[in-house]
């Protein structure tokens, strides 16, 4: 069977085409998702001003990227917080180990020095 040629679409790109009811519903959904993000991730785009497909695409890109960024940042924050929670424990453990090793000598020295100075 010979390869079947797929015609090149003749349409001219038109981002100024009025947004369909589907795209306006998508804006509504994106707005709901945006409201759940911390304000620093908000697009600053007034969603009710979106009229054309190009408008919707710009808003969709902004919110979609913000959702991913917010989740990535939250994952990093969680990792940092987990590391911090572990870090004091590790330091305390290290301190205890150090104390156990040095305790006898250091206590003697401290007392000796104190005694001499006094």
């Amino acid at each position, binding site marked *: *069977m010979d*390869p*079947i*040629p*797929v*015609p*090149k*679409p*003749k*349409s001219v*790109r*038109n*981002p100024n*085409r009025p*947004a*369909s*009811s*589907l*795209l306006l*519903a*998508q804006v*509504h*959904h*994106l707005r*709901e*998702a945006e409201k*759940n993000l911390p304000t620093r991730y908000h697009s600053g785009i007034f969603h009710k001003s979106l009229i054309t*497909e*190009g408008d*919707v*695409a*710009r808003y*969709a*890109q902004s*919110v*979609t*990227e913000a*959702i*991913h960024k917010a*989740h990535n940042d939250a994952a990093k924050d969680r990792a940092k917080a987990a590391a911090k929670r572990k870090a004091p424990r590790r330091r305390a453990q290290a301190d205890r180990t150090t104390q156990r090793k040095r305790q006898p000598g250091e206590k003697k020295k401290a007392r000796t020095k104190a005694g001499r100075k006094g």
Partner: protein
Amino acid sequence: MLPGLDNLRHIVVLMMENRSFDHMLGSLPGIGGIDDAGAFSNPDTNDNPVQPQALAEFQGQLNPDPDHHFPAVDLQIFGNATNRGRQANMQGFVKSYFNQRQDVAHSQKIMYYFQRKDLPVLTTLALQFAVFNRWFASIPGPTICNRAFAHYGTSFGRVDMNPFDVIEPIKSIYTRMVTANPARTAKVYYYDTASSSMEVPNLLQNQPQVFGQYRDFLSACDNNSLPQYSFVEPNYTDHDSDSGEEVANDQHPDHDVQAGELLIAEVYSHIKNNPKTWATTALLVVYDEHGGIFDHVIPPPCVKDRFQSSQLDPSTGQGFFFDRLGVRVPAVLVSPWIPKEKVVDRVFDHASIPATVTKFFQLNYPDAGPREKAADVFIEPNDGSGNMANNLLSLDVMRTDCPDFTLPS
């Protein structure tokens, strides 16, 4: 044991937008389309019969976008009858479209369908692989709630476009896959961030990790690294992107149907061009709903969902129980293990998608809703539990005569 099922590792679903079966595939003879255009008609508002005609155009014809919300689809299916015991007759399409522009001549265009030569990609796939001639939208309504059925097996009581809440214990097919033991892999691929997803309120908002972009999907096809389940969304808008100017390819009226043809060909070609991907993948191309465009087949009843809609069913005056399907849509299953010219005349709807994926990948998931539990599956598992008579990947030897497409440069 069937080698096609033994080899199957990946299921891919490409869900297009808003075209009816008769509109796209009705020209193909002998598959339950418009074999005899004179046999079908719809009255216009002057009560003159309007017959289907092969005059559909790629763009510019269905403007404004035909109404496909719940009340309009009710008119299209029942032809204005609202009484108890009314019978569906598919007689209200022209009248429904007239309501939007009050233009009798324009309203008749809702009956137009494409000639076979207009759609070389979709019609070739339909003839070369398996075409479903009784795949219906899950709801007689619009996009978002119909797509919800593809992801959850239910729309949680919605027949409209508003955001919905996922009601436990029902889980998306993606959650079922990635939390299974052993874990499976699943992705939703949106076209790019400017097109984004139609699954924002629950999936994108809460599980962005299950999303990828279309270019990632194409790379995964090329590298034979597809997830076990992929759901591909088209580009919904004309917009600028980093890679240039993008044209909507979802085929939603009034977007260019040829751009959608190109998308389908590209998805098919990337799967086919890697021999390992091709041998191990089944691709379903399906449309989410009919978009208000004429189809002649009366949607069948189905089991009630566990939810009831707040929108009233005109025949009962009560909330809609999700006990009948929406209008018929095009659906084609592609695999080199499917024989040529297979016509599948069992009833399917979008709940068949999570039902099939759950069953094939043997996910332990007892919480499916009644609609999903009752939905037929299009791929049976190869473990003896499935009905092998219904298995579409039925060949003993992989085909080597599958078509190729030449994409425009």
